[in-house]
């Protein structure tokens, strides 16, 4: 929290807003209140909701809680003290507040302030931090947390004797709202504090939270919200989230922006080594990274994926002659393990932590003096938030070093540094609320108290993401929750919710309620497989021995990752290189490999694609050869060679190169739209090329380029008018071709699975009774196939398509790109691979390669077997 007063606020105004007890407390700590802290007090007094935009280290949390603390202290500085009468009683008597509905005894009020955080660790940490001012000022305030870890006895007590301030997560809020106690708990609510709002609103958790807020506005119309956020591109849009949206028009909470933060000092590592053409390990720069860790007090080293973190950690320790305390932190590690690292970090015992986005948010550590970002920054806001993790003293510059892992990433780092210098933000726009989340919420509402469709529809639309929800969509969702929403009305007797005589929807049996409670939430974990270490099957591939069962458990790994492997592939797991032997049910069998390097880097790009904004800047940078002077010599030379042998793409055009190589023919294009959109483009292009008899064999996509190869001579076909590139890249591929592909797309099936789970069609957690009946697993792929064929407009398919626009398939971005380059394709007919194409081609064999036609792949695999067997 803060150490310095950067602002001059007139003392009289301070005195007016901040009661004496508080002023004294600030002074006793050597602090004075910051301007934005006072601004939030003023907003609270005016009964206004507010969004505070402030960098880390600005005393944001205290700012969010000051109005609460002042009000609960019963000081005249606060807004109308609601509870003065009971306050004295509580202060005098440490026992829980008396709850009685009897005449003459004042009924204890419920919560005063609700705090929601995306991380339960953060909620726990904030609770601990609040204890300090509460204790030191002797405030009569009870602060409690409620997370998945809170014991049942405490939860029950919280419902009967609510604390003044409850700190919790969006999921726990949903559960509380679905309970009978919701009106008692929340009707007295005055303040809602939403922490790390910028992070919450980008996902379905944000949708769930927005619906929870809509409930709260109904139960407690007097409640006002304070949002705490890092800097975003459109604060006014984010501020809509905090206030009920009246039908038709858009309203926002007031925005308070904390100024005065020192701009960060960001540089790109100018490596002494040769810059790799491709890959994401940045292994060339490891000695330099190690030096940086050694030269600084505490360094956070961010990477983009879990496996990258594993590999980097392993490599750093291999060269750690000084025995520096370097730790590892990522989301797949055991919670206790992560907590241990965090504690060691907080205690200043670590010199470096290699981490993933698992540390993008969270508890403040004061003493980080350097952030290193390995690989692609992906987005400027994202990078700024990471950099903000260094040096939480608001008034001092954070320091960061970007380490590009390949030449394209140099371009990305360069434009990211420029964007940061301009403080240009590229956070995504506010989401449109997802229908699967709405389904979960509707069931939750019915679990709480019977509802009328008309009323709930109006309430839901007060939530910003659902402000323009169509009535038909809402009705379809209710129908889905009731009987599955099928055109064939055969499930009436199995309904989960039914209308009573007054038309109110109520839950039909207690099991529905139980299942809702078990399955609340929008975070769908990947299907994980158990990894067991066994002895290698002798003889390498083609061996016939049965797999030795049993073996030591090494941990768990994502099913999606394993599906991309073939036996004998090696990968890093739990810090060692292992060889993939077999997959049997939910067990992955691996043996110890003696290789130093894993064959499969399992990069998988991380969760987030390159932001549209940075992509555009990269295209502009390429287009402006004068700006290349700011790039390292190796990259400058690379681009100059590209200009000489082919062409450097102009900002608005799509460059397409074709050339022969090693018996195959290649087509490489450079849309710079991120791996996900490129992957979808690759799927669709190969379909079209197949139809055009170009006989494509596969493709590989990275963040910048897409390379397709095949048997047919593409250059020849283009030259002789047998292949028209404008037609090939025509946006009409998003019509029938897309539909045909979606029918079998594994990515679409994964997207659908998430919707099926979140909407409550398929449970992921079961009661003991259900488990014993073995109705546990059902493949959502089968549901997808059947539903698609028989009711293509079903609400869950609509939800999945909505997700596909921005999620794993990134369709919207692909669509925007196709319109952008329409009629602007430049073709280069080359004799051999161009400098710009080299990185993409080098990734063949390292990244997953896709082929469409399963029959061809199966036939090829079968023939390979014959060849092996006969030679």
């Amino acid at each position: 929290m803060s150490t310095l007063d950067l602002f001059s606020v007139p003392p009289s105004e301070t005195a007016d807003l901040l009661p004496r007890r508080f002023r004294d407390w600030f002074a006793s700590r050597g602090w004075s209140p910051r301007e934005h802290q006072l601004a939030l007090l003023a907003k609270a007094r005016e009964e206004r909701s507010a969004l505070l935009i402030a960098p880390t280290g600005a005393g944001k949390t205290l700012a969010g809680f000051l109005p609460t603390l002042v009000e609960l202290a019963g000081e005249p500085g606060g807004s109308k003290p609601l509870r003065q009468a009971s306050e004295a009683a509580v202060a005098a008597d440490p026992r829980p507040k008396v709850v009685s509905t009897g005449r003459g005894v004042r009924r204890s009020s419920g919560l005063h302030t609700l705090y929601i955080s995306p991380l339960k660790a953060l909620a726990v940490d904030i609770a601990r931090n609040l204890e300090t001012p509460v204790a030191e000022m002797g405030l009569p305030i009870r602060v409690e947390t409620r997370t998945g870890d809170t014991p049942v006895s405490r939860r029950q007590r919280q419902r009967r004797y609510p604390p003044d301030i409850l700190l919790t997560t969006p999921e726990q809020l949903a559960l509380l709202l679905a309970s009978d106690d919701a009106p008692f708990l929340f009707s007295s609510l005055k303040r809602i504090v939403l922490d790390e709002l910028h992070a919450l609103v980008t996902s379905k958790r944000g949708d769930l939270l927005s619906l929870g807020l809509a409930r709260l506005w109904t139960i407690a119309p007097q409640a006002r919200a304070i949002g705490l956020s890092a800097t975003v591109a459109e604060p006014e849009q984010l501020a809509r989230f905090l206030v009920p949206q009246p039908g038709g028009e858009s309203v926002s909470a007031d925005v308070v922006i904390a100024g005065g933060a020192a701009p960060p000092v960001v540089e790109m590592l100018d490596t002494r080594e040769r810059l790799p053409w491709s890959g994401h390990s940045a292994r060339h720069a490891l000695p330099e990274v190690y030096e940086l860790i050694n030269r600084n007090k505490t360094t956070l080293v961010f990477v983009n994926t879990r496996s990258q973190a594993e590999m980097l950690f392993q490599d750093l320790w291999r060269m750690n002659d000084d025995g520096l305390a370097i730790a590892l932190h990522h989301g797949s590690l055991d919670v206790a393990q992560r907590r241990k690292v965090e504690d060691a970090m907080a205690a200043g015992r670590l010199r470096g932590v290699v981490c993933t986005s698992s540390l993008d948010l969270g508890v403040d550590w004061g003493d980080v003096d350097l952030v290193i970002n390995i690989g692609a920054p992906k987005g400027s806001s994202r990078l700024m938030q990471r950099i903000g993790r260094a040096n939480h003293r608001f008034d001092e510059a954070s320091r960061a070093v970007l380490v590009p892992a390949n030449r394209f990433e140099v371009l990305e780092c360069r434009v990211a540094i420029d964007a940061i210098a301009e403080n240009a933000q590229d956070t995504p726009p506010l989401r449109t609320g997802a229908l699967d989340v709405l389904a979960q919420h509707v069931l939750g509402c019915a679990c709480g108290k019977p509802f009328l469709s008309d009323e709930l529809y109006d309430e839901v639309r007060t939530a910003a993401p659902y402000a323009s929800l169509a009535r038909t969509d809402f009705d379809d969702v209710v129908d889905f929750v009731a009987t599955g929403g099928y055109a064939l009305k055969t499930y009436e007797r199995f309904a989960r919710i039914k209308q009573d005589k007054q038309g109110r929807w109520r839950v039909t049996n207690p099991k529905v309620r139980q299942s809702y409670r078990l399955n609340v939430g929008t975070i769908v974990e990947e299907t994980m497989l158990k990894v067991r270490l066994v002895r290698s099957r002798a003889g390498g591939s083609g061996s016939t021995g049965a797999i030795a069962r049993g073996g030591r458990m090494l941990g768990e790994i994502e099913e999606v990752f394993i599906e991309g492997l073939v036996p004998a592939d090696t990968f890093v797991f739990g810090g060692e290189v292992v060889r993939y032997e077999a997959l049997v049910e939910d067990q992955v069998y691996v043996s110890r490999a003696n290789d130093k390097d894993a064959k499969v880097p399992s990069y998988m790009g991380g969760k987030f694609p390159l932001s549209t904004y940075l992509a555009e800047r990269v295209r502009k940078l390429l287009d402006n050869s004068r700006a290349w002077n700011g790039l390292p010599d190796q990259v400058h030379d690379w681009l100059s060679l590209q200009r000489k042998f082919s062409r450097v793409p102009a900002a608005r055009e799509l460059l397409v190169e074709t050339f022969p190589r090693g018996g195959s023919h290649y087509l490489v294009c450079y849309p710079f739209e991120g791996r996900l959109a490129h992957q979808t483009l690759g799927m669709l292009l190969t379909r079209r090329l197949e139809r055009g008899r170009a006989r494509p064999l596969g493709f590989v996509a990275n963040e910048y380029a897409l390379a397709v190869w095949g048997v047919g001579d593409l250059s020849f076909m283009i030259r002789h008018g047998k292949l028209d590139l404008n037609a090939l890249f025509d946006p009409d591929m998003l019509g029938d071709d897309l539909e045909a592909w979606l029918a079998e797309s594994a990515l679409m099936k994964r997207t659908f699975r998430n919707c099926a789970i979140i909407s409550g069609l398929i449970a992921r957690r079961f009661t003991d009774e259900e488990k014993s009946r073995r109705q546990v697993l059902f493949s959502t792929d089968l549901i997808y196939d059947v539903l698609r064929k028989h009711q293509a407009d079903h609400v869950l398919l609509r939800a999945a398509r909505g997700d596909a626009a921005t999620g794993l398939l990134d369709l919207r971005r692909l669509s925007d790109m196709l319109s952008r380059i329409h009629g602007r394709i430049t073709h280069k007919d080359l004799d051999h691979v161009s400098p710009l194409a080299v990185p993409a081609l080098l990734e063949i064999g390292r990244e997953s390669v896709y082929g469409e036609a399963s029959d061809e792949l199966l036939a090829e695999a079968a023939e390979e077997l014959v060849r092996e067997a006969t030679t």
Partner: protein
Amino acid sequence: MRVSTVTVADVGFVADCSGALFWEERSLLVVSDLHLEKGSSFAARGVLLPPYDTVATLSRLAAVIARHDPRQVIALGDSFHDRDAHARLSEPDREALTALQVRRNWIWISGNHDPALPPSLGGVVATEVAIGPIVFRHEPTGAAGEIAGHLHPKARVPTRGRSIERRCFASDGERAVMPAFGAYTGGLSIRDAAFARIFGSPGFMAHVLGDNRVHAFAATRCY
């Protein structure tokens, strides 16, 4: 469509990529594990799966029957997902089923999911049927000349760059286990110990269902 063959006790069956076997000489079509009304069975327990599985399964069955026009059809057990499932058939589905049975010998082999089927369904109900050197029963025992279902075999095949998982026939020339035909039927990996017990060794083949043909792999190549 290329014809693939699964041989059991010197009888060559056409392996249809829908998961059916056709014995040309006898004009006999065999399908296994239809699991009709599995959707409504789940719905009764609160999992509201789309109620289209029966119509999906029956239309695929109609297609394969149209392809081979068999005089006899054997449904190799677990044709219905539970004991009451036949009673939940919708009228159009019941009619579709009856239409398929016209001018055909239809044999329902009973399975563990459907041990007792009423005569109103048409056809004959039996626990097993022997035709020539072949015995058809629901649960595999490993006996020579046996064609069974029950296990829902599937195989994951490594191909270039990725792996493909599909339903498959499992056979060693002496006996075979058929893939499940139903729209809502999952699968059991052929690397599961259950298959090793039936075949006595891992040296059997997986005939993997492709989109338009069936591909043969040594089971040890799959995973």
